[in-house]
């Protein structure tokens, strides 16, 4: 078969261009570490990679939310622990106050300490979280306010919002102050921890309760009230602890999911470096051989022999 001279040159150009572009492609794969440079290189894998990237972005966001939620729950736990300690001390003071042998000044000292405990409880109940929001508030406003007469009241409105930690999973990090510190059954109605301790302090203060029997009744009622409040705080703390534990499990799950995603992504779009380098070497050798043989081939011409 005869081969036209122009065709010979054209075909050699096309073949060498093809080899050069294969080499450039392999070089890009090796340099980026990615087998898929554009989605059309492997449409199915590219689609899966896009989905994995989305999952990874979601997981990363939810991990951030989990960290924040864990920190806030930790703050809640510490605040409630302090409340427990304060109530423990209040309970001891109440039991001491029940002793009828105390004199007025002993009782006044106890009352002063109880007042300090109320101040501490008020401060703890009004703690703010990392975000500057009340730890035990509702969805708006402050948690507790103190009136001029010293009474402490829950003023939060609405319910605090849970933090999303998954596509349809949320965790509540702010407990409602009303339910933590208030809603303690007392007779027909309810009372709160501040009223119990303040009431006890008031009864023990000089002139607070002149009738020893009435005072004793108040003290006994307070001991029961403080016990109920303590038990409510312990329950609230246990709930916080349970949520923290859940977050820890969720966080481990997300971290594991992320690394699994990473591995899958690598297997989908990652380039096998050894194979790619070998392939590149092969392509370069072929290209060099093609160039050399083309040069030799085109050097020969019958015209050289016409004298």
């Amino acid at each position, binding site marked *: 078969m005869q*081969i036209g001279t122009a065709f010979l040159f054209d075909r050699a150009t096309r073949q060498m261009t093809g080899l050069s572009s294969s080499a450039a492609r392999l070089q890009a794969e090796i340099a980026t570490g990615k087998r898929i440079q554009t989605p059309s290189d492997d449409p199915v894998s590219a689609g899966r990679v896009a989905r994995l*990237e989305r999952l990874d*972005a979601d997981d990363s966001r939810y991990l951030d939310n989990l960290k924040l939620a864990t920190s806030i729950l930790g703050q809640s736990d510490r605040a409630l622990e302090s409340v427990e300690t304060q109530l423990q001390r209040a309970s001891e003071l109440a039991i001491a106050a029940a002793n009828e042998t105390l004199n007025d000044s002993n009782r006044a000292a106890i009352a002063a300490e109880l007042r300090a405990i109320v101040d501490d409880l008020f401060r703890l109940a009004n703690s703010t979280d990392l975000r500057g929001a009340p730890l035990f508030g509702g969805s708006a406003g402050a948690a507790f306010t103190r009136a001029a007469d010293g009474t402490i009241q829950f003023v939060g409105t609405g*319910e605090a919002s849970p*933090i999303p930690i998954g596509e349809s999973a949320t965790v509540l990090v702010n407990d*409602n102050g009303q*339910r933590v510190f208030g809603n303690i059954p007392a007779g027909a109605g309810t009372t*709160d921890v501040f009223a119990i301790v303040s009431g006890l302090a008031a009864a023990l203060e000089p002139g607070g309760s002149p009738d020893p029997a009435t005072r004793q009744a108040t003290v006994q009622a307070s001991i029961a009230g403080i016990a109920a409040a303590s038990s409510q705080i312990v329950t609230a703390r246990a709930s916080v602890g349970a949520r923290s534990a859940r977050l820890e499990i969720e966080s481990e799950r997300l971290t594991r999911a992320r690394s699994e995603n990473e591995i899958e992504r690598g297997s989908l779009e990652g380039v096998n470096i050894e194979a790619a380098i070998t392939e590149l070497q092969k392509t370069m050798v072929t290209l060099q051989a093609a160039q050399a043989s083309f040069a030799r081939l085109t050097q020969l011409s019958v*015209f050289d022999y016409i004298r």
Partner: protein
Amino acid sequence: MSDLLSIGASGVRAYQTALSITGQNIANAGTAGYVRRDVRLEELAPGAGRYVLQLNRNINGGVLANGVDRAADAFRDAAVRAGTAELGRTSAGIVWLDRIERTLDGADIGAAMTRFFNAGEGIAADPTGNAPRASFIDAADGVATAFRTAAEGLSATAADLEATARLAVTELNGLAAALAAANAGLSRVKLGTNEHAQLLDERDRALDGLSNLAAIHVTTDDAGIATVRFDDQAGPVLVEGPRARTVAVDFNSSGMLALTLDPAGTPQALAPRGGGLAGLADSSLRLADLRANLAAMTDAFRDGVNAVQAGGIDLDGQPGAPLFGGGPGELVLNPIGLRQIAAARPWSVSAAPGNTGGATLAASSAGSPLGATRITVTGGTLTAIDPVTNSVIGTAGFTPGVPTTLAGLAITVSGMPQNGDSFTIAATGSGSRDNGNLANLQALRRSGGFESAANEMVSVNASALRARRDVAEAQTAIVDGARAARDAISGVNLDSEAIELMRFQQAYQASSRIIQVSREIFQSLIEAV
């Protein structure tokens, strides 16, 4: 004697012609569309003389260069043209699919929307913080930019496609005119002449060019005059003899290409099966679909996000302002402040102090409720009370977890309320830390499926591109094979021509020698007398 002289002279003349044809071949070795020519040498047979006075004289004739043979093969030419048309369609498609891929991949709408929705979850974690709100606005700007980049990229692609199609049609008309001119020439020149071969080269160059643009069916008559139809022998005629019809191209409002044959005479819609024009038509259709899809997605996203915003309350206690603006198919971030992102639900429910049950209520508007409503629970009944006048607005039974409409509110009770528990449902004011409205954003994300749709747009195009590339590879091999087969006949090989050159040169020298010998014989005769 004179016979020997005339034989020598005829050889010199014939081989001069042969040498000039070989020279022509060598000079045109690199000319595109040049078909190798061979000299047609004929013996001048003894017999009837060529002139009246030589009638019945016995002549030893010599040789005559009687014409030029063109080394062409109509079947191989047709195979190359058919392959070129197929490849032309595929390659023209690849160009635009590749542009679309680069545009969509570069804009990466899916990832921008993922960032946006995740930034929403960031606000949900810290509803009053400025940092997550700033990230949200940035992410919203990112989405607007991604949509704009994609829309502008596709629009630029469509404009380029239109310009390319117009150029291609101009080229088609030019080639058809050139072919008609070649046909006209072919009807005038004598067969077997150099001019005839040149015109046939012209004709084939025009046919090759046409087949790159559209699938054509070619028939030729004895003189080589070509009749060209689109597609097959029953297709509409483009060129017949010296007459060429013109093709016009037009684009409708969505950018779809339409070809019309003979717009000035009897217009006829044209949809060639192969060639670059068919590829352009395919691509224009795909591009128009894609742009329509993108515009629909843009509208759905903008309206969805704005509806979520409008359904919530911002940090100033106002209903959320639209986050995005722009006309149909456009997405423009409105200049809204950080506090104007509506994270909170419009109604906040507060449980009264002293509630003994652990139930919670959720409320949404279902009419025109009061600014605040007190709800008390008795048995399985909710009673709505105006907290200002303490008058009962209405009562309704309820099932936990199922919304009940009461006092213009849809109220959902979760958990077990106790008798006497009461709740206040109030319009959300400023500074709320509620994040309930952002759950609606996530609901929009799930129900809208925007990210999947955006990724699918990329995937569908990528699959089409991939398939076309594979097809193009196979078609390129076919065309290369067809070209090689044609070239084996028509191509100029310099080595062969060098050998021909030597052959004809020797023949020329030998013919000159015959003349010399004839002269010497004549001389010796003269001297003998």
